[in-house]
């Protein structure tokens, strides 16, 4: 099993979720994070002075999936999250050794 972690632009969240649902993924965990990267931040004023804020609000999605699903999932995220502008984000794939559903104790693919 794999953990697919996608860092995306916040306003793409609904699109990505729908795209994932279309390929059969209904479970995921979302967190609000801040990203630094090539994308420029914005400037803020404070009583006439100017400051640069480098970090940008991003959404992080963690999606545990079966190995077989990796390609469809990547594809779905790519398509839904892409704007073509800098800062669209990244997808990381990491191995998972075990998944357990707390409610039932099921493990492995059954737990997804």
């Amino acid at each position, binding site marked *: 099993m794999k953990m697919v972690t996608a860092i995306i632009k916040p306003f793409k969240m609904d699109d990505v979720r729908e795209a994932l649902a279309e390929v059969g993924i209904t479970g995921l965990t979302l967190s609000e994070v801040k990203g630094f990267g090539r994308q420029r931040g914005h400037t803020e004023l404070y*009583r006439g002075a100017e400051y640069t*804020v480098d970090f940008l609000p991003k959404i992080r999605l963690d999606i545990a999936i079966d190995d077989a699903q990796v390609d469809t999932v990547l594809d779905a995220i790519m398509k839904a999250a892409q704007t073509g502008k800098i800062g669209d984000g990244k997808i990381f794939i990491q191995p998972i050794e075990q998944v357990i559903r707390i409610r039932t104790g099921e493990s492995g693919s059954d737990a997804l």
Partner: protein
Amino acid sequence: MKTALLFLTLLAAGLGLGSPGFAQEAATLATVSEAVAVADSADQAAPTVDKGDVAWMLVSTILVLLMALPGLALFYGGMLRAKNALSVMTQVFAISSLIGVLWVVYGYSLAFTAGNPVIGSFDKLFLSGVTVDSLAATFTDGVALPELLFMLFQLTFAGLTAALIVGGLAERVKFSALLVFSALWFTLAYLPMVHMVWVEGGLMFDKGELDFAGGTVVHINAGVAALVGALVIGRRLGFGREHLAPHNLTLTLIGGALLWFGWFGFNAGSSLEANGIAVLAAVNTMLASMAGALAWMAMEWIVRGKPSLLGVVTGAIGGLVAITPAAGLAGPMGALVLGALGSLAALWAITALKARFGYDETLDVFGVHGVAGIVGAIGTGIVVSPALGGVGLDGYSMGAQVLTQMTGVGLVIVWSGLVSFVLFKLIDLVMGLRVSEEQEREGLDTSTHGEQAYKL
């Protein structure tokens, strides 16, 4: 420290304190200033109390309380980082309360009884002799207020003034030290200034200084103390490196708007009656703050490309500060101009001046209250001119009046500067003025007050 003293000396010098000769030539008759000779029911035709005045002054009194709580507490708290939001609110609450109690114990007596040109007497300690039937004179012959009401109105001024100072030392000052400072500064700087400026026989009152609602007594006084405090305590950790950004500007908006709202009590209430002068003061208060808001907005838009909410709010406060000494004296168009100038002067102080000297006066109390206060105090001498729509004065001469105003400004800068400097230094020696580095990092809310503002 050297910088601090140098700075104050320069300011004082530039303002003509060095030339009392001129000042003494100034008009000495202040018909519409805030002196109050408490009525002696025997020696004049019994003055009458109008219930309309009582209603208005009760309202004005609580409006000034509202300026401190929650007004100032929110205005300040919102501009700090979340970890220090409650600390400044606690400070404002505690200081207002402490000063209020000291006011009835000895403050009112020292400020508003006859004494020497600098301070009053202990005749009304614990409000002795001030009963439900005591009367205080207003600026109109034959019209009096219940003395308790005058006393209460002035109580709220004292508390607010002391509370203003905390903005300069926010995010690093020790709570206990601040309370001690407040009590002493109130005694040694605020009470004398009230007596000198607002009470017949007071030094500046007799010189004819005009300060309708507290430009020198309240705003410059507190602004200078805040600057001195900031210089003595030193910069915050991270100042100049990190963007020490406001954590909740919605609080600052609420606080700023309530300050504005309450300021009508502060300014129009200073007429002590629900009369035409109160109305004029209200009109001027409205227009000066609006002009201040627009002036800052325009300038920030031009210079930085963006008009910020904090700018608009700060500009409005700057306008309010500037009109305070002139509230019942200027005409509406004078108020528009003075408000705009006060706001722009504050903007200049906060950006250029602060950057130039590199001090970290957390919430720009000096920039907003001190500098706009100076513009207002001196400008009062100008906008009072009937030629400019002001109410005028007997024997008014603009040059002379402006010099008197400058003398008053110089006096409060030096007095408040010296008292504050000595007190801050002394307190620093005796009990420490600043929290430890670790406590500052953790934030004052948990380290000093055992609380966190938010658990969202």
